């Protein structure tokens, strides 16, 4: 279903479906921990999809709330 | 023989008996009685009656009911039916089964309140956008009105399209004895919405126009082959064949009887389906027929076009097609007879 990012063997708290991201920036602007940024890569849709810095992420779900393209899945505990 | 019933009321009751359980409409003379009758009758049978705020809202409510698989219909006249054209096109494109009753009143625009047949070309060609057709049924008596209502729903469902009952003002208003059919079991059409997404309707955005076109051509060919209906007499030896539907059709049939009693070899074809046009009836006509005569109540002659096209398709010779457009009302038999003699004498020229 989505892109499962792992950094150093640790599962991220939020799944990102990068192919859906249209780079609107709502998640970036609203993340309380400034954990989200745009990728250096360009996706198959021609956008720079978002990436999450897992160290900063607190899985608050605000990115999920703001995203118009349903990019995120918050994995939760 | 049944009780005397007003044409409009008879059609409304026939629809209820046929299992229709949603009516939405707007008052317009000479169709209003259908709506008034149903304003209490629908609830009696557990159906839904909605007095819509406009003709446009009315047809869209009927579309909503049809989308849910409920037998749904509306009734109107003149400019009211004009307003519904977008809805009829939508229902045709969405392959919904529904019935529209047009109690035709003569005229253009606001028109008149008198009986007429001036909507023929619009009903048979379709007034909305695109390549659709509707089943068009033309009663000539109150009993036939009742019978054709049931047929209208059945054909609409069989082919998933709109059936139009093209009756007329005088037939809606007059009273004749008629019998009603038994109550049909009320069923939802299997393709209707049920809230559970059982039927995955394809939206207009996602349709494949090329596949749809092929399917449409095939559907209409099947209807033309299987659903033509008409009444005919005296065709085998006819010198002239009258073609006329509805109440003018009754006058014409009477005029034909009187002309035959005077020794004229005339016959008639009374279309009961205007679409599909009863081309097969023309195959029964005397190969040496001298001409066809339409009797219609409009000003420019409308059905005459279909007769000319049919004659061209089926006959080898180039036969004249005449038109007697009596504008509005119900033409008198004596007038038809006099005009026939004028045609014979060459005083009235053919249209085609």
């Amino acid at each position, binding site marked *: 279903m989505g892109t499962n990012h792992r950094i150093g063997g640790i599962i991220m708290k939020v799944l990102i479906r990068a192919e859906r991201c249209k780079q609107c920036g709502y998640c970036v602007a609203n993340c309380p921990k400034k954990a989200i940024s745009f990728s250096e890569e360009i996706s198959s849709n021609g956008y720079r999809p978002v990436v999450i810095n897992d160290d900063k992420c607190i899985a608050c779900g605000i990115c999920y709330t703001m995203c118009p393209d349903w990019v995120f899945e918050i994995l939760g505990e | 023989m049944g009780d005397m019933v007003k044409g409009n009321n008879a059609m409304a009751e026939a629809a209820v008996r046929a299992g229709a359980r949603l009516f939405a409409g707007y008052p317009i003379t000479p169709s209003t009685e259908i709506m008034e009758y149903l304003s209490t009758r629908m609830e009696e049978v557990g159906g839904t009656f909605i007095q819509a705020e406009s003709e446009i809202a009315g047809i869209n409510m009927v579309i909503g*009911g049809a989308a849910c698989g409920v037998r749904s219909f509306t009734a109107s006249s003149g400019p009211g039916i004009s307003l519904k054209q977008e809805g009829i096109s939508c229902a045709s494109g969405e392959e919904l089964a529904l019935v529209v009753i047009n109690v035709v009143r003569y005229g253009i625009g606001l028109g008149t309140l008198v009986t007429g047949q001036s909507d023929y070309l619009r009903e048979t060609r379709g007034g909305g956008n695109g390549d659709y057709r509707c089943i068009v049924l033309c009663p000539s008596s109150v009993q036939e009105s009742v019978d054709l209502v049931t047929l209208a729903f059945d054909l609409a469902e069989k082919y998933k399209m709109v059936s139009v009952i093209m009756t007329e003002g005088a037939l809606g208003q007059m009273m004749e004895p008629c019998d009603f059919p038994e109550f049909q079991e009320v069923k939802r059409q299997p393709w209707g919405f049920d809230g559970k997404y059982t039927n995955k309707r394809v939206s207009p955005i996602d349709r494949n126009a090329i596949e749809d076109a092929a399917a449409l051509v095939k559907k209409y060919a099947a209807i033309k082959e299987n659903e033509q209906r008409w009444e005919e007499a005296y065709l085998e030896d006819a010198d002239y064949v009258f073609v006329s539907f509805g109440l003018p059709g009754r006058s014409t049939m009477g005029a034909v009887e009187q002309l035959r009693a005077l020794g004229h070899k005339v016959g008639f074809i009374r279309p009961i389906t205007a679409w599909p046009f009863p081309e097969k009836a023309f195959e029964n006509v005397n190969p040496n027929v001298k001409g066809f005569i339409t009797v219609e109540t409009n000003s420019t002659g409308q059905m005459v076009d279909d007769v000319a096209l049919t004659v061209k398709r089926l006959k080898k010779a180039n036969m004249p097609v005449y038109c007697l457009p009596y504008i509005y009302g119900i033409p008198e038999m004596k007038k038809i007879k006099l005009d026939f003699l004028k045609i014979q004498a060459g005083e009235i020229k053919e249209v085609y």
Partner: protein
Amino acid sequence: MAKARKTPAILSNHMMFCPGCGHGVVIRLIAECLEELGQDKNIMFGIGVGCCALLNIGLEADKFNALHGRCGAVCTAMKRVNPNTTVISYQGDGDAYSIGIAESLNAAYRNENFTVIAVNNTNYGMTGGQMSATTMPGQKTATTPLGRDCEITGLPLKFPEMVSSQFNVAYVARGTVTTPGNVNKLKGYIKNALEAQLKGEGYSLVEVLSPCPTNWGMTPLKAIERIEQELIPYYPLGEFKTREAR
């Protein structure tokens, strides 16, 4: 704190809206509310014409693309013949307030028991950004390139205010998608609207002020700013009508 959140199953595919368009948020909130109320397998949508028509793609539910402006009539009938099924009319400001104003008003007037979600982006989006009834004074659109002159074209229409004050309706609210707080409040309004329908109280309406970066000629974040600074002062947020204190 880390609550699991997943796109509702009724939304099977992402949708084709412009980057930053508010439709995607509204649709997700509707789907979440339907799941939470147990109505996601008991739902019918009437969909208007415009960008809202794109709701059709990837929505796993009974849905009918109505003619332009006619959802008010189509949904009236769908609910009347299926009183126990939830019915939602999903329209834009053009579909609901211009061509469809008669059907929209009359459904409210009759207190029909379905829910209208009207996504208001102050222009006709799908056709390229023409003036709509909710276009602001001076706003440049494809048909008001010099700015909307309200002397000639009328003042921006406040439909929720109209129906809540004049008609016997069950629930009316206006929300927006500009901040997490507003998105959460909007979800509450949508849920209240659907609950009003489930309780048979009658007509419910939620208007959503929505960003249209493409036709406003702005970035998504600038479009959000426009809503906050120019639209909310004119189109206040909140609940205009409820049958009971919620």
